């Protein structure tokens, strides 16, 4: 199944998540929007970190994996944060 969700982060930017999922795993996660991440390629690292994640993964686990990707790249996020992205991904699966 395919899910999309769009959310404007308060004091931040518009984040648009799209992903595919079946009964077991998440796939093809895309985190798009008008935010800033330095360095920019961090986004691919973040998306990759969530690939094949069990569909029942909770917000805390999703955030943790995103944080690891951000740390790995020593990245700076502006207008977007891993907590909000984790919440959105979780919501996208539930909706």
């Amino acid at each position, binding site marked *: 199944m395919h899910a999309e969700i*769009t959310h404007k982060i308060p004091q931040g*930017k*518009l984040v*648009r998540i*799209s992903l595919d999922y079946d009964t077991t795993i998440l796939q093809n996660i*895309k*985190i*798009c*929007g*008008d*935010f*800033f*991440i*330095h*360095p*920019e390629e961090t*986004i691919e690292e973040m998306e990759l970190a969530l690939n094949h994640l069990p569909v029942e993964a909770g917000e805390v686990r999703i955030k943790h994996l995103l944080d690891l990707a951000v740390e790995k790249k020593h990245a*700076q996020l*502006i*207008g977007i944060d891993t907590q909000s992205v984790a919440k959105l991904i979780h919501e996208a699966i539930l909706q």
Partner: protein
Amino acid sequence: MNAKPATSNETNWRLIPLETNTAAMNMALDEACAHEVILGNVSPTIRFYRWKPSAVTIGYFQSLEQEVDVKECAKQGVDIVRRRTGGGAVYHDYAGEITYSVIAPEKMFANNIVESYQQVAEWIIAGLGKLNVKAEFVPINDLVVSGKKISGNAQTRRSGILQMHGTILCDVDVDKMFSLLRVPDEKMKGKTITMVKERVTSLKQHGADDYTKIYHALHEGFIENKKITEGKWTKEEKQNAQILAEEKYSAQKWVGMR
């Protein structure tokens, strides 16, 4: 590497005066220039440019399909290019806006990214002040006049170089803009357009409608308190930009990357 300058007013800057290019070439020139600044072959650079044909740029993280009506752009002869900076989609009308870029060692600016947006924003504010337009910086990356957006800006930092570019709206046609850009909820398109009309302004709406005068005012604002020399692209920059325009910025692989 050249000696690292402490501040933007101690540096010897190069200014590339207003020029007109295709979308791919404009983005390629930013990248080619950044490369030469990294190597220390050219001075930190300020450039002004416009877009012919008019073009839509999208931010690095944006989805092409979500943000742009690709078919409509083709129909209207509007170019589309992905920027290497984040931020939102922008319609760069040939006659309706001026774009600038600042390409310099990041050490010349605040380490904090939002603060560095403000540092460059001050140059735009100085320029608009010469047109008796009082603009203010609104974090993260906007400039407003009487609370309405007149300029959007975006930067990337790579290999110690800050590359920031932004648009200053001279005359805005919101209906045309949204014939090319999509909105998050297409059912709400009419409402969104009305909202944007209320939230966006242009220099024309503030009594400045002469493109040449606007350019000269911005030019003045940017060069104030700087050692700056008018210059040209080097042969290396031109050659590199030509290759980048063709191989990277015109390629579907890049434009449709997300």
